[in-house]
């Protein structure tokens, strides 16, 4: 036919014009050019070998579509046996493509490094510190998983990250809210991304009593909120995070949002006074709205030995879907460090001073919360 000027761009090389039974000559030419290239690979690999099939890991699944688009020739209409599966060559091509997608052009050494990492994990050839903190897993999995949620879902905005000292011990004191302590995870990721330091959270003893949670908490650098551990970590020059409101904070009803609860017994202040590290007040706005807590089942909570069983507008009514947090807008503001090294020796044993400093920290966070709330246009923007 004389339709030489019609180049089938939009059909991606498929013989697309006409009735479909007779491809155009242009299409036939294109198809003919591509076919012999794939020929040698295809027949040899009709029966996929079992180990080869397992090779492509989870990474290749999403990347398979572009491979089909870019490299594969025109679609053949030859019937394949339904049980034959995908030929190994396709698996390999997909895998290589996926590797290129994930690791870039220089994928071979990158992949080798990744496999070496996997092997190190499998053979236990890594180091944890005395609290059980596994920096590798925290950086590669925990923070990597929290980061997109924090950036894309909550659109976290960090203010005053320069108030966090670049080195040496410091105590970050934050308000606590959100029914599930998501704010702790987001703070962990935000601090790591802005300063490169790892926040070492202090957790309630319930955290270390619960299976799975306790193992994860230790791996991500948490330790028990007790004076011994807090002082040990601060003396060791770590950046320690504490949420003195505890369960009173995260389990408070939605109507009490942004009202700071009692700040424990001020144990964190005496730990800071004893070690002479600065206290950095952190105000988190946005975490209150992710799971608006409208009800509680105290009887069931007592029965299970947990502080509360939350009821939100979506949980438990929507089941697991109710666990999706609302996409509120988050603001994190780190305040001016409050110095504790100027008090004389033995200040930590003066309860009045400890209460005063506790109130000072609490007031700072409360005032910052109000000003941040003024700044935010609405809950979601």
């Amino acid at each position: 036919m004389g339709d030489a000027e019609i180049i089938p761009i939009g059909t991606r090389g498929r013989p697309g014009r006409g009735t479909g039974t007779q491809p155009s000559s242009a299409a036939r030419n294109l198809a003919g050019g591509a076919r012999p290239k794939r020929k040698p690979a295809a027949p040899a690999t009709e029966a996929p070998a079992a180990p080869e099939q397992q090779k492509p890991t989870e990474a290749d699944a999403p990347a398979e579509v572009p491979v089909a688009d870019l490299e594969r020739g025109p679609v053949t209409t030859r019937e394949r046996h339904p049980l034959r599966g995908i030929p190994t060559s396709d698996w390999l091509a997909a895998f290589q493509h996926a590797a290129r997608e994930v690791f870039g052009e220089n994928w071979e050494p990158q992949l080798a490094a990744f496999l070496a990492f996997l092997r190190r994990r499998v053979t236990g050839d890594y180091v944890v510190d005395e609290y059980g903190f596994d920096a590798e897993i925290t950086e590669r999995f925990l923070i990597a998983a929290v980061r997109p949620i924090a950036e894309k879902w909550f659109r976290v905005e960090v203010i005053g990250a320069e108030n966090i000292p670049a080195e040496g011990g410091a105590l970050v004191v934050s308000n606590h809210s959100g029914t599930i302590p998501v704010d702790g995870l987001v703070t962990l990721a935000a601090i790591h991304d802005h300063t490169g330091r790892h926040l070492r959270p202090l957790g309630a003893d319930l955290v270390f009593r619960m299976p799975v949670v306790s193992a994860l908490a230790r791996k991500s650098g948490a330790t028990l909120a007790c004076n011994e551990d807090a002082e040990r970590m601060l003396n060791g020059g770590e950046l320690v995070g504490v949420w003195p409101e505890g369960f009173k904070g995260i389990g408070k009803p939605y109507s009490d949002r942004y009202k700071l609860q009692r700040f424990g017994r001020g144990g964190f202040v005496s730990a800071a006074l004893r070690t002479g590290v600065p206290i950095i007040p952190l105000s988190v706005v946005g975490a209150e709205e992710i799971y608006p807590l409208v009800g509680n089942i105290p009887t069931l909570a007592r029965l299970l030995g947990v502080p509360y069983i939350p009821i939100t507008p979506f949980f438990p009514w929507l089941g697991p879907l109710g666990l999706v947090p609302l996409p509120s807008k988050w603001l994190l503001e780190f305040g001016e460090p409050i110095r504790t090294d100027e008090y004389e020796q033995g200040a930590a044993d003066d309860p009045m001073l400890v209460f005063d400093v506790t109130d000072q920290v609490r007031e700072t966070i409360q005032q910052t919360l109000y000003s941040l709330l003024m700044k935010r246009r609405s809950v979601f923007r």
Partner: protein
Amino acid sequence: MVSDRSGRVVLVTGVSRDLGRRFARSLAADPEVGRVIGVDVVPPRGDIGDMSFVRADIRTPVIAKVIAKEDVDTVVHMSVIATPGSAGGRSTMKELNVIGTMQLLAACQKSPRVEHLIVKSSTTVYGASSRDPAMFTEDMGPRRAPREGYAKDVAEVESYVRGFARRRPDCRVTMLRCANVIGPHVTSPITSYFRLPVIPRVLGFDARLQFLHQNDLFAVLQHAVRHPVPGTFNVAGDGILMLSQAIRRMQRPSVPMPGFAVGSLGSALRSARVADFSPEQLAFLTYGRGVDTTRMRTELGFEPAFTTEQAFADFISLLPPTGGYTDRMLAALEQQLVGPAMVGGGERG
């Protein structure tokens, strides 16, 4: 009084057990020590070197006669045992531990020659719970007082030793709280746990473990005999291993199961005499324990030769791996995909 250091006479209890015998033998070879007298109910099996063995029951006043007759000036108490083992049931074990210590201390108090007492205690005295601090220092106690078993025995032994130290201020009392002793030939609840072909562990928990190599145990006891420093000291190798990490290093498969199931499996294994699984071990394998060893370095002046990691590596060097399929699969994958030239080239991390 024996003033000449070379003429020191050391009494070692609990020499019928392997660790006690090995320690007494190495101590007898020490030129600074004149004589080593080993005491136990049953004679030790194996080479005892230059040690002279006296068959005596420390639960009876006979021990006082031995101390008086032999002019003993240093007593090393090593016979606080973790499991009944061959000794019999739990009541025998408790008697050996508690009554034995009381009799021994009474004998030491009677003899004016005894000027140095070294007690091998255990970090078990700190217990293991969810409310534990990350690292126990010597001044801390258990969060929950132990109510039974080895932990209670150790706590009682320690309180008797403290009482003795009060009554005999002229006698230097060194208490060494040792972490789990591990080594290729050590038989203890923790080593028999790790020798299981498939290792049960508590679902959802990962214990922090610290080990002390057997050579370091001998070294620290010998160090304490040579340089008497009164006080209580934690003794452990540097660093921490997580239980999951330890099991991965052994390349043995593990089965996570709920805590109560691990407990009942443990008691079943114990009654079947497969493994010496002690009840307080369950809490230890759930929550783990870490001890601070600053005082061991600064005051006692002892430096362990093996870190926790090295001690464990030495322990598993003789154990054949029963798992490790994942690693072999990954290694094969590495070979196939990136070629042999690239393997090991990854320097990430």
